[in-house]
């Protein structure tokens, strides 16, 4: 099985029976299997969220999809082609600070274009900064911006390259609730306009349901794997704050939470025992 085809088009991203085992450098007999048996498909233009208890290897999966980490077993296909090295068709928004502190906001946004040798990098960067609401902040260095602003710069930095797949690793987990909802709506608007494939990692079930087409639940680690998949049939366009109050949202939330709760408790007990 090289790749599953959705209709006639290859899936944007396909993880097939992926397992990641880490070996302790100082003691090679110590192994840790973060994820195993993960089969996950993101169709072109589909918004898929992965939720799971903390430490269940969500970020590991994303790094595999980005090509930053090679899986121990299993395969990754991007638009039908086997992935080797960095995933060139994907943009990655990291959980922690990823901006280059020695570049201004505008220089950070244009970095990817510059690496590719684009001639109008500055103009495109300025346009994207405006689009994320930071028009006047192009000359600021990251340390002169607030956390929310830095996230916007990161968003612009990722999206200016117009990637076919967008990978997001709890991008808003460090933000306060208001900024977070603003950013979530912004991302949804941008996604609706371009319809890219999105793989969104979060530990926040509300966020996952409000934003996605599909939610995948992971079991607690070690060796975590998908234990449930839910199609989110809420109508679009959505407002992340308003959609939470709809009955269908509550229903979906209960259904997913009933699957997830046991795993969250298991993960919590494991952390306490460690």
């Amino acid at each position: 099985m090289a790749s599953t085809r959705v209709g006639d088009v290859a899936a944007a991203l396909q993880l097939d029976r992926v397992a990641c085992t880490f070996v302790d450098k100082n003691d090679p007999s110590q192994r840790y299997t973060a994820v195993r048996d993960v089969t996950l498909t993101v169709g072109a233009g589909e918004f898929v969220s992965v939720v799971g208890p903390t430490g269940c290897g969500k970020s590991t999966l994303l790094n595999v999809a980005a090509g930053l980490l090679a899986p121990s077993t299993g395969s990754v296909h991007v638009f039908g082609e086997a992935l080797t090295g960095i995933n060139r068709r994907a943009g990655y928004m990291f959980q922690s600070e990823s901006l280059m502190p020695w570049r201004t906001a505008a220089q950070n946004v244009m970095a990817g274009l510059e690496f590719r040798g684009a001639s109008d990098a500055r103009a495109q960067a300025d346009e994207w900064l405006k689009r994320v609401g930071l028009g006047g902040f192009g000359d600021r260095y990251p340390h002169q911006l607030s956390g929310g602003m830095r996230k916007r710069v990161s968003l612009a930095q990722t999206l200016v390259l117009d990637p076919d797949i967008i990978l997001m690793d709890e991008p808003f987990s460090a933000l306060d609730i208001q900024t977070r909802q603003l950013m979530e709506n912004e991302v949804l608007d941008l996604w609706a306009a371009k319809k890219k494939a999105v793989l969104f990692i979060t530990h926040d079930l509300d966020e996952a349901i409000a934003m996605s087409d599909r939610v995948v639940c992971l079991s607690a680690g070690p060796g975590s794997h998908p234990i449930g998949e839910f199609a989110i049939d809420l109508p679009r366009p959505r407002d992340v704050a308003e959609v939470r109050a709809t009955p269908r949202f509550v229903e979906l939330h209960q259904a997913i939470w009933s699957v997830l709760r046991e795993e969250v408790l298991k993960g919590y007990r494991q952390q306490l025992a460690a």
Partner: protein
Amino acid sequence: MKYLRLWQGGLLLLIFVLWHVLTKPGLIPPFVFENDQQAAFFFGEPLKILGRIWSWFFINADIYQHLWVTLLETVLAFGIGTVLGLGCGLWLALSPMAAAITDPYIKALNSMPRVILAPIFAVWFGLGIASKVALGVTLVFFIVFFNVYQGVKEVSPVVLANARMLGASQKQLLRHVYLPSATSWVFSSLHTSVGLAFVGAVVGEYLGSSRGVGYLILQAEGSFDINTVMAGILVLTVFALMLDAAVGKLEKRLMKWQPKTGETEKL
């Protein structure tokens, strides 16, 4: 601090006045030495020292050629040592294999007392500028090298992964991630290495030369002329300070992306 410079200047003045009072023959009765000439003999007299400096710069105007030589040696040692240290640091930090092989040698070379090499350099490169520059380079190189090595090793893995995802090639990573990240470490080392470049130049001159401030000091020592020795030390100190300030200025310009605390202004 509003009057910071004033306080600093005042402290300097106080030291000179104290020095003057304690060494001027006949001013106060001797309490450590047996007669009042000895303090002046051992520690020099500030007035005579300043007079010496005055005549060096303005009356005889004969220090410029020596100063020029010392300065040239210092700047060359500083420049060559920094570039070599930067290059080797980047190279070894990015190729673990080479780093593993050369590790014991680097450690050995660094722990060797390098001033001992001065006579060998004098034999290899003669008594001119080259031998002093070589000594200075050996001192500067390791400081910069270790700092660059450390700086590259401590590049944030997330920033690095981000740059790779944005499509940076290996060369672009070096230019846009490793190098800027290492510069903050390099600059903290440059302040130390400016001083060491000076040490290399002066020690080299001191051990054998016909020009340079180190040579002037050596000659004065030969005739127990402590005032000239002190004058030479003062001139060298001021020049080291000026070079350090130049590095600081450059640092301020290149490192303006670094966060500084307390950027608010009291209105």
